[in-house]
């Protein structure tokens, strides 16, 4: 395939990845990297660089929409960003010394865990503001969430475990060039027991900030190939926008089953590729 058809094919794949990501609640980054590696034969390091840039683009767009609605908890986002950014820098430094095959294996495992997390039984553990962790109160983390009956206050728990979990989410983001949104949401709604609506919005605010912490290292190591970043970032951005528009009318349950199955198979293939097994 010659230019410009190769880039157009990549852009088309990126639009699909972004759209599917938005529809099933995974980021486009975690889907586009294996597509580039397995489908287009692109080196995993270039794929991760392009995916990370697309993560920043979509997170900025999505976070903007949530901010307007006043659901994001900016204090929680900034406080936890201290953990994710430091983790992301460490992860990116680790990524540049690891072998591409090892990265492929870790990526495949992270994909499988991500699928597991999105299949888990959703349980909103949030409760009244009075029961907050004293440290959360000191940091002024508890806030209100808008409801039809006016703003409703909520508590924030487990500040230290949540913070430590976020360091891990940051490392994964820097190591694999993903937004690690699924991990961030779990840390906030299961460990810190923040309401779902707030965790999704706040994680979008944080994903871009986290990704920005490792992208500079990717840049200096030459992971950002402009001719790959451009079609991938633009494609995922357009796809995510279309996906968000389709969300209210799409058969989300069926799509989730179909694509999470596909993502699991891709995860296994990434692991097999790392071990140099072909099937």
């Amino acid at each position, binding site marked *: 395939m010659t230019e410009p058809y190769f880039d157009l094919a990549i852009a088309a794949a990126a639009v699909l990845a972004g759209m599917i990501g938005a529809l099933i609640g995974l980021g486009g980054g975690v889907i586009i990297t294996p597509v580039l590696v397995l489908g287009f034969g692109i080196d995993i390091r270039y794929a991760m660089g392009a995916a990370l840039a697309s993560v920043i683009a979509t997170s900025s767009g999505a976070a903007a929409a949530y901010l307007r609605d006043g659901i994001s908890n900016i204090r929680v986002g900034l406080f936890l960003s201290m953990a994710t950014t430091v983790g992301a820098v460490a992860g990116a430094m680790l990524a540049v010394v690891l072998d591409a095959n090892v990265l492929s294996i870790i990526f495949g495992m992270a994909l499988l865990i991500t699928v597991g997390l999105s299949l888990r039984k959703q349980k909103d553990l949030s409760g009244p503001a009075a029961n907050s962790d004293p440290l959360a109160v000191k940091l002024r983390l508890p806030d209100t969430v808008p409801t039809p009956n006016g703003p409703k206050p909520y508590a924030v728990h487990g500040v230290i475990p949540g913070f430590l979990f976020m360091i891990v989410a940051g490392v994964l983001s820097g190591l694999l060039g993903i937004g690690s949104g699924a991990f961030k949401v779990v840390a906030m709604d299961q460990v810190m027991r923040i309401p779902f609506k707030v965790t999704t919005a706040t994680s979008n605010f944080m994903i*871009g900030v986290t990704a920005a912490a490792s992208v*500079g290292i990717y*840049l200096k190591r*030459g992971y950002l190939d402009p001719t790959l970043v451009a079609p991938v970032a633009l494609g995922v951005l357009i796809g995510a926008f279309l996906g968000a528009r389709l969300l209210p009318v799409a058969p989300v349950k069926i799509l989730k089953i179909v694509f999470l199955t596909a993502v699991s198979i891709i995860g296994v293939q990434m692991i097999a590729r790392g071990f140099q097994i072909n099937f």
Partner: protein
Amino acid sequence: MKTSSFQSSLARLMLGGTLFAAAIIALGLVWYLASHVGDSPGGHIFSGEPKFLESPLAMIHHAGQLHELGHRRSLIMVGVVLLLLNPMLRVAFAVFGYAAQKDALYSGISLFVLAVLAISFFW
């Protein structure tokens, strides 16, 4: 900091910045492809990137050097760097917002995050 005017101006900044960066990337990609019709892609085997694409300042300088090889790719990278600066602006905005409200704790926290971003990006 909870005021809706702050949140909506931050939202506008983020959306506007993203769209502006995306437009530059699109322009750079079209410009690049226009001179590479019929070429075989082949550039996706890992070899790192030329030095001028590895630092933001060198890139902007290079994009202006119209007679040199690779300036069309530099234009894409200028757009990519603008895209990457968006989250940094988001945090910088928070530093000033909290400082204006004399909120020492949160201007400190945002400043820490901004420092991590700036060091990893420009160092």
